């Protein structure tokens, strides 16, 4: 189990922010973290990895990472980390990237086969596409058989087809090796597919914690817009902020609506 109780003062673009988080994550859980930019998501991952300092305590399976006299060094935490920009070792080939982590050719070949990269193993990583690079990074992160996998918006730079493929591969790895995983993401569908639990961060605090369904399907109060047009099929064009949307009404609902009128649309929250 991963026990987190940390505090840190952040000086971000939106001024001072007090990161204050407390939660426990079970072994093998896949947790997604959502929140506006500047809410402290990436900082949380970096603190867990030991790349940034913080006050408080972090314990992983009865080993203290933070809270003892000296924080446990990054090198000793056995963490896999996926960066948004892949962060591959550019002077090495695909295979060398994996073997640099651990000289275990058999396991490297296994991982490359699992992600369909075997044919590219001698290729320089600078020659790969974004999707291929992130798959190499995923394999590299798994080389030490990490007890914790941290994913910092790993798929946000990829197109939707590649994103689906990578989601499958992340899921495959998670099922095969059972490591605890924490992923920062903005993509609701991605979170729904991968995570078993979602934390929503706002101004450095956890404001919601639950299954993806519980957290993301919660009703909102509704959005106010202006009715711009209503055609004969009762399809209305509504201005929401700067966005135009079309809403189909039943004949009953459309009765009494007037162009120019302010209306409130209640919807299921998907993000």
């Amino acid at each position, binding site marked *: 189990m991963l026990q987190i109780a940390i505090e840190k003062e952040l000086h971000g673009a939106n001024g001072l922010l007090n990161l204050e988080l407390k939660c426990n994550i079970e072994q093998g859980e896949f947790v997604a973290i959502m929140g506006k930019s500047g809410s402290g998501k990436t900082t949380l991952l970096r603190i867990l*990895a030991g*790349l940034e300092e913080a006050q408080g305590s972090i314990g992983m399976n009865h080993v203290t990472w933070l809270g003892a006299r000296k924080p446990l060094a*990054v*090198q*000793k*935490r*056995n*963490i*896999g*980390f996926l*960066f948004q*920009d892949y*962060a*591959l*070792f*550019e*002077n090495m080939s695909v295979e060398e990237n994996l073997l*640099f*982590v*651990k000289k275990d050719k058999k396991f490297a070949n296994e991982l490359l086969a699992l992600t369909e990269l075997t044919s590219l193993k001698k290729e320089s990583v*600078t*020659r790969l596409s974004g999707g291929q690079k992130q798959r190499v*990074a995923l394999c*590299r*992160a798994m*080389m*030490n058989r990490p007890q914790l996998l941290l994913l910092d918006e790993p798929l946000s730079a990829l197109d939707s087809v590649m994103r689906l493929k990578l989601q499958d591969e992340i899921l495959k790895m998670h099922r095969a090796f059972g490591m605890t995983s924490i992923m920062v993401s903005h993509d609701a569908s991605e979170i729904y597919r991968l995570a078993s639990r979602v934390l929503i961060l706002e101004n450095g605090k956890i404001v919601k914690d639950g299954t993806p369904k519980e957290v993301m399907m919660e009703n909102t109060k509704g959005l106010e817009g202006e009715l711009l047009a209503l055609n004969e099929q009762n399809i209305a064009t509504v201005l929401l902020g700067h966005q135009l949307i079309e809403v189909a009404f039943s004949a009953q609902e459309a009765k009494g609506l007037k162009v120019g009128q302010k209306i409130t649309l209640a919807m299921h929250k998907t993000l």
Partner: protein
Amino acid sequence: MIETLTHLDLSPFVLSFKLAGVTTLLLFFVSLPFAWYLSQSRSKTKPFMEALTALPMVLPPSVLGFYFLMIFNQIELNFTFTGLVIASCLYSFPFMVQPLQGGFESLNKNMLEASYLAGKSKFKTLLFVALPNIKPALLTAIIITFSHTIGEFGVILMIGGSIPGETKVASIAIYEMVEIMDYNSAHIYSLIMLLISFVVLLSVYVFNHSQKRVGGFH
């Protein structure tokens, strides 16, 4: 002319290259950990150290030479090759440190962190990840330090004198030839220096240009 060429004393060039070679080698090993430290440091003393490092670039060689003269006098290093090496190392220090530091600072920080996360020490990361990824900066640092030492004059004049085979490097030899109005030899020596310097610099720029093209292609 041919007679002048055959009787040309090449020992000042040999000495210049020896001095530049030893200086570059020593500086490389001293500067590497220092440049790495500066690139990774967020310490408040960093600007202070950077300013100290850059000092030899702006100080007149006579000022440096004067201080060396005073210090070396105490430890009997004036007019010796060892004295020249120590002075050259300090004089060329920024030319080795700054390109290396710039190279390290331009590296993707996440790439270095990925190495730490893989369990690798800072030393292993420097050796196997950072250094191989700053090849152009590395080459620039080595070549510029080497050529800068070859071109050294003022500091050597102050502390080295002109002892053949010990401190009489090419730049000093040219200065002496002009003083005794042996313009013929001065011409030949100067032309050799000019050609060597140009070829060395050209090779650096050609290499760096080719590296950029390789980088840009992918």
